[in-house]
Every structure is written in C-alpha cells, then in structure tokens.
C-alpha cells in the first residue's frame, strides 16, 4: 500500500509578512535554526498595510486552514503608519469572519520585529498547533479547490 494513502491531515497556513520586520524576523528564526512547522508558508509584502482582506479570503477559498499576518510593532513601521491601518483593517475583517461563524482562531495578527526570530518561531509553532487542534477548515473555502478531480 502506498504510504500517502494513509497520510495524516496537515494544515495549510499562509503567513503574510512585512518585508522590513517580520520577514526579517523569519529570516532570523532561520539563521538561528529555530524550527516551526513546514505547513507555514510565507508571502512577503512590503508592509502589513499592503495586505488586502481579499488576499486572506483568497487563501481560505483555496483551502488554507489558517492565515496569519505579521508586521512591525506599532510605532516601528518602516513606512511610519502602515501597520496602524493594517491593525484596524484586520480587526474589522477578523471580527466579520467571527460574526459569520468562522472560527476566530483561524486568523491572527502578530507584531514581530526583525530581532524577534525567537518570537517568530514561537508564534508559528503556537499558531500551527492551534490550527491543527481546530482541524480542517470546512466553513470558509471553495469546495471546488478541495475536491480531487480526475
């Protein structure tokens, strides 16, 4: 029997990281060999304020089980105010998802500086653990993406 038929379910996690702090934080995690689950895939954006709610929904549509956005700590934004806007936008979006009955733990925002490799890894480990416990995301996704067609 081929092994992958028995494959255990693993979550799919998309992480949007701002170029200046969080992406560098992720790099530092790498340089420091701090491991976190391979399920986490990072997309680089210039600033957390570049993250459009449509990207997050798109990720869920395509079958992501959790989406996390990381940016510079408030006050430290490379573009001075970007993450303040991002903070409001994400709060609103997450609130709406929660309101629609989507598990609120599937979305998260964390501020990770370039020096916080440790924190980056810890956050990702924790988020992946949360998502794994929540299980597969069935409430928000396009079934057409999950169905195996032949």
């Amino acid at each position, binding site marked *: 029997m081929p092994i992958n038929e028995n494959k255990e379910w693993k979550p799919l996690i998309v992480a949007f990281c701002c170029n200046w702090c969080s992406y560098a934080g992720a790099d530092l995690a790498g340089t420091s060999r701090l491991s976190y689950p391979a399920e986490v895939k990072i997309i680089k954006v210039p600033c957390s304020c570049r993250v459009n709610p449509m990207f997050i929904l798109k990720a869920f549509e395509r079958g992501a089980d959790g989406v996390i956005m990381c940016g510079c700590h408030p006050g430290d934004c490379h573009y001075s105010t970007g993450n303040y806007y991002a903070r409001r936008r994400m709060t609103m979006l997450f609130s709406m998802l929660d309101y629609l009955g989507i598990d609120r733990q599937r979305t998260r925002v964390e501020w990770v500086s370039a020096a916080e490799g440790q924190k980056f890894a810890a956050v990702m480990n924790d988020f992946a653990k949360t998502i794994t416990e929540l299980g597969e995301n069935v409430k928000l996704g396009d079934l057409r993406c*999950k*169905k195996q*067609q032949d």
Partner: protein
Amino acid sequence: MYYIEKAKLSELFSKIAENRSLYLPVKKNGQTNFAHWEEGTEYCDDLKTVKSAKDHFFPQTESLMHFKTEGKKIQINQDKIPDEKTVLFGVRGCDAKSFKILDSVFMSEPQDAFYTARRENSVVITTACSSPDEACFCGVFGVDPADPKADSDVVTWFAGDKLYWEAVSEKGEALTEEIKDVLSSSDEKEVEEEKARISEITKLLPLNNMSLSAFGGDKTDALFNAPQWDKLSEACLGCGSCTFVCPTCQCYDVRDYNGANGIQRYRCWDSCMFSDFTMMAHGTNRPTQKQRFRQRFMHKLVYFPANNNGEFSCVGCGRCVARCPISMNIAKVIKSFGGDK
C-alpha cells in the same frame, strides 16, 4: 380525475419520491423556493416562489466540463449529462408556460444537452392558483391560472380539503399509473367550481387586461427609437433582480474556475441589464443603461416573437413587479406603449 386528501399530501409525496426525485416549493429562511423534497419537508402553498421554477432545468450555475493541464498538454472532460428522474410539483401556470419558452431556446438546434436531458427526465405537475395577486397578469400571455393544463403533465387543484389530480400528458399518465395507489377517483364538480371561482378573481386583476397590440415581431422599427425608453430606464439600477427572478430570461455566461485540482468550466445566469454583459476589450455595443434596459424588453416583446411565431418571452408571473428595487417592470413598459388602453 383523482383526488387525495390534503392531510395525506405527504403520502403522495413519498409515493412520488419512491422512484423519482421530487421538487416542490418550500419555505426556507422566510423565502419560498423550489427545493428537493425529503421525508418531513413541508410543501408551501405560497402563490409564487421567489425564484421561478426555471432553475430546475436551467440552474443558476452548472458545471459543463473540466480541464486538466500538464505543461502544454490539456485534457477536456465533459461533465456527466444529468439523468436524474425528477418530478416538479406545485408549478404555477405561468412557470409551466415558461418551460415551453425556454424549450424553444435550449431545445432548438443546436440542442443544449444538459437542459434537454433535464427536461426529458422530468414530469411537471402544475397547481391552479387559488389566490392570484395584483401583480399577476398571466392572462395577457394566454395562461389560464384556473386550468393550467396547456404546458403541464399533470394539473392539480387545491379545493376544499382535497387535492385534485388530472393527468394531461403521456408522461403525466405514466406517473399517475405509478402512484395510483395513493389516489382516489373523483368527479369534476368541486374542481369546476374552483375553476369558476379563480376565473372570477382573474377578472379583477388590475394588470390582467393589458393589450399587447403595440408589440410583436414586426415592431422593431416602431419601438426601438421610441422616446419612452428614456423615462422608463432612467431609474434602472442595472441589477439583475428582474432577470434572475424571471422565468423566461435565459442569458448565460460561461466561466472558468481555476481551482487547485484542475479547471472547471461552468455556466451561470447572466443578465443583459449588467453593464459588462456585452463588454469586449475595446468597448460595448450597449454602453448606456437605457440601451440595456431596452434590450431586455425589446427581446421579450419584439425580438423573441419575431423568431418564435409571435410567442412573447413573458408569462405575466409578476415577479419583476414585486421584486424590482425601484418598481420598474414589464407591466409599466407595456402600459407606457399604450398597453392599458
């Protein structure tokens, strides 16, 4: 003619559902629409479903085929042609007539395989309208709400505490044969009374006496540049609510969905009222809402009859009268061209 007690309707439904899938009006979240019947599903005798019955044959979205790509190679797999045997119960006369209109589109050459298969696999059971409302004007288009046998397989009437049942086509008779056990024979007295009662009401319907003399296949020149269109279309929002509740509107779009595991090509309803309906890379031939508005009504009242022996593409169900956000509708269009005379 047969009957069954209203109280035993669910017996009738389970009997029908033994060999076929049954669809009938069901109220869900405050809105009545056709839905699949399962044990326990309650039939709703509202006069009109919000959406017409057309999406039973021409669903709002329907997958046509799937593509697989690998490098430069592609593979095209047509989706399975539906073979579900179905019964539609509780169809009003107007909707039943709309099927004939849709047939002349989808079952004319080249036939639409998906629509044709659904249509051929289904039995249409109409139900007479015991309480028509002010928006109904099916009489204008020759539909008899009291006796909608013209376009159905079985006609039914709710009268007293009974549902009367009359098969009016071969398909209808075959179905009747299948389920005869739950029906009892009956004379036509109570049905005739009901028909007479409904006919009296239809005479009171304010829109039911409109005249269509201004319309028809030969009226393009007379109507196309008429000044009325400006005023009529002025407030139109360009939404598709009239189109999507209309039993005869059949414009569709074909789209590709690029999912993770291959590409689906599906068909979905579209509306000539949408601003991008005829949009191409370099522009559209109907840039204004007036043109789009005119197209919809000209199509129903002029172009369609021109290609279909004078048959109009409207059945007077009045859904647009009830649903248009700004209360503009085909009745107002007909009237503004002298239809109320």
